């Protein structure tokens, strides 16, 4: 199998820069999730790797082979399109068999392979139908089967499971992952669903407006987002952001409204270096302890005062929207307490989990000092 490497790849459509100066390396056999909002250039990036589009500038390598100017059929990639793109005039069997037929694989072998992959995706009973007679989820599985059957070196999947129901989705995606690992295919998986990305991917790449924001292990992307966009995009609900002043004395602490927030040693050192007067404090909804009574606050820990705006019971926990001054934040609280609108609450943020960002560049402070 091959590794895929993009070097300073840019793709413009007239004035629109769909993919902007992207450097990205997907290792041999790796499962990379590509995550980003609508219109961020995810599909365009896949089409560039598949060879449907030629980059406006930059180069694409499979291992050390420069494939930038190679036509799609010489790249041996499988692509599952966002809208399936099945051949409507062919039966499901012939749809899946098409790539093999073109490769002039013997008939018996085609049959065997088609049945094998159809069974895997649980569509063997649909082989005699036309795509128009299938549901969206069934069409999607046919599209995956067609991409898999030719045993590609690189498998590109453009939101391949978006039309499956929740149950099928979980089973097909673990099947997909197992298959990918067994065959050792290098895979890039576009999705809107970050839970899916976290569950499936070896690494996650986050893209916004054609620019790669961060490429890292799922837990790193989640716990140490490189910038406010990544923090605000990953997680459900995403990371909260609160503006804060910085006070430099014998120690360094944040000022939010009338409250002070103590910082872990790591951030104290970074702030002393950067000497910022203002930062953005970021924290995830689950990294907060919600206290209803000031007396519950342990001495020496820091809390931020707020007022409950809405209460949404979620079963295992309660999602609270809390106003801190003018800023709205979302936090999870245990359902053992009773919360109602207008209640005063004290938010105790886990100091090990809080993140600080530069308000000007939106970059996380620890990444600022590294570079």
């Amino acid at each position, binding site marked *: 199998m091959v590794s895929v490497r993009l070097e300073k790849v840019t793709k413009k459509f007239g004035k629109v820069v769909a993919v902007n100066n992207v450097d990205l390396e997907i290792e041999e056999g790796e499962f990379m999730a590509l995550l980003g909002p609508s219109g961020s250039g995810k599909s365009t990036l896949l089409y560039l790797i598949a060879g449907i589009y030629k980059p406006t500038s930059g180069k694409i390598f499979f291992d050390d082979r420069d494939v930038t100017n190679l036509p799609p059929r010489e790249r041996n990639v499988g*692509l599952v*399109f*966002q809208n399936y793109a*099945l*051949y*409507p005039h062919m039966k499901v069997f012939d749809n899946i068999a*098409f790539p093999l037929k*073109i490769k002039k694989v013997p008939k018996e072998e085609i049959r065997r392979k088609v049945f094998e992959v159809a069974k895997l995706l649980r569509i063997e009973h649909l082989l005699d139908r036309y795509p128009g007679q299938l549901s969206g989820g069934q069409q999607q599985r046919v599209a995956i089967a067609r991409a898999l059957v*030719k045993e590609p070196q690189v498998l590109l999947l453009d939101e391949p499971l978006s039309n499956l129901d929740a149950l099928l989705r979980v089973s097909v995606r673990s099947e997909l992952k197992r298959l990918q690992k067994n065959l050792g295919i290098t895979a890039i998986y576009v999705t809107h669903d970050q839970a899916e990305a976290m569950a499936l991917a070896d690494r996650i790449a986050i893209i916004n407006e054609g620019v790669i924001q961060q490429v890292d292990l799922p837990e790193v992307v989640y716990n140490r987002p490189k910038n406010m966009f990544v923090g605000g995009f990953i997680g459900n609900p995403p990371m909260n952001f609160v503006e804060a002043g910085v006070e430099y004395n014998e120690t360094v602490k944040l000022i939010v409204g009338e409250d002070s927030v103590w910082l872990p040693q790591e951030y104290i050192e970074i702030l002393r270096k950067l000497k910022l007067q203002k930062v953005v404090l970021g924290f995830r909804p689950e990294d907060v302890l919600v206290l209803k009574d000031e007396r519950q606050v342990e001495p020496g820990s820091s809390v931020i005062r707020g007022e409950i705006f809405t209460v949404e019971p979620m079963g295992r926990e309660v999602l609270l929207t809390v106003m801190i001054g003018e800023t709205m934040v979302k936090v999870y609280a245990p359902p053992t307490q009773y919360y109602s609108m207008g209640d005063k609450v004290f938010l105790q943020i886990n100091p090990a989990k809080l993140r600080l960002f530069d308000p000007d560049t939106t970059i996380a402070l620890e990444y600022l000092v590294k570079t």
Partner: protein
Amino acid sequence: MMQLWDVEVKSRKIEIVLILAVFLASLPLILNYGLLILSSFSTEMVTNLDPTSFRPTIDNWILLFEGRLSVTGGVREDVVRYTINTAIVALGVAGVVVLVSVMAGYAMSRMNFKGRSLIMQMILLLHAFPGVALIIAVYLIFRATLPSDIELARIYSFAYVIVARAALEIPMSIWLIKGFFDRVPWEVEWAAIIDGASRLRVWREVMLPMVKPGIAAIAIFAFLAGWEDLIYVRTFLFDRTLATYIESNINVEFAYMPLLAAAGTLYLLPTILFFILTQRLLLETSTGGIKG
């Protein structure tokens, strides 16, 4: 629920009114054709709307294929031959039109080259040109290129009328088939390219089957245009077709009218047949939609 019921009733009423209106509007046409067909099975023309004049017979059809022009007269006309000639011209026109339009329409839809929209506009302009306006120039070329050998010239006149008549149909056909190609999603074509197919193979095995209804439509339109054509056939073709046969006999004194009605019915037959057989297809063409 009530509302739904209400809406359904309303739409059914509107439908009935619409059907009635369409029927009334087409009544003169239906009546004319009906009378023509009826006359071809009668000893007298029934066009005077007098039902007592209708006496059923199939003699007219027998006479027609025997090549007789009147019941008594000795003039012989080879109507079978004319029918074959008509079919040759019609099929030829359909073939040429389909071949050229399918290739040109694909190029217009899928390939990005300089002056594409200009060409599309020119094509539309060409379509607006009446065929008669061009006929002098087309005739001059015909005269200049006509072989001197008479047998060769006969064959050449067939080829010439086919190509010339097809040229008149091609502009509209390109537009029509381009619309069909436009509706095929790019992704389907890309999928085939990624699957390893060459551009030609994608065109043949993926694109063409997906525009089949469009191909059928332009083929039928072209066939009927060739079948019905009078001016080009009369100007260029050495042989006769059904159209020229009827046209040249319509005001011959001894012509037996019910027999000509039979000839006219024969001449109409493909049109009627095609419209009955392909009603659904044509409807699909006009509302435009390839179902997945």
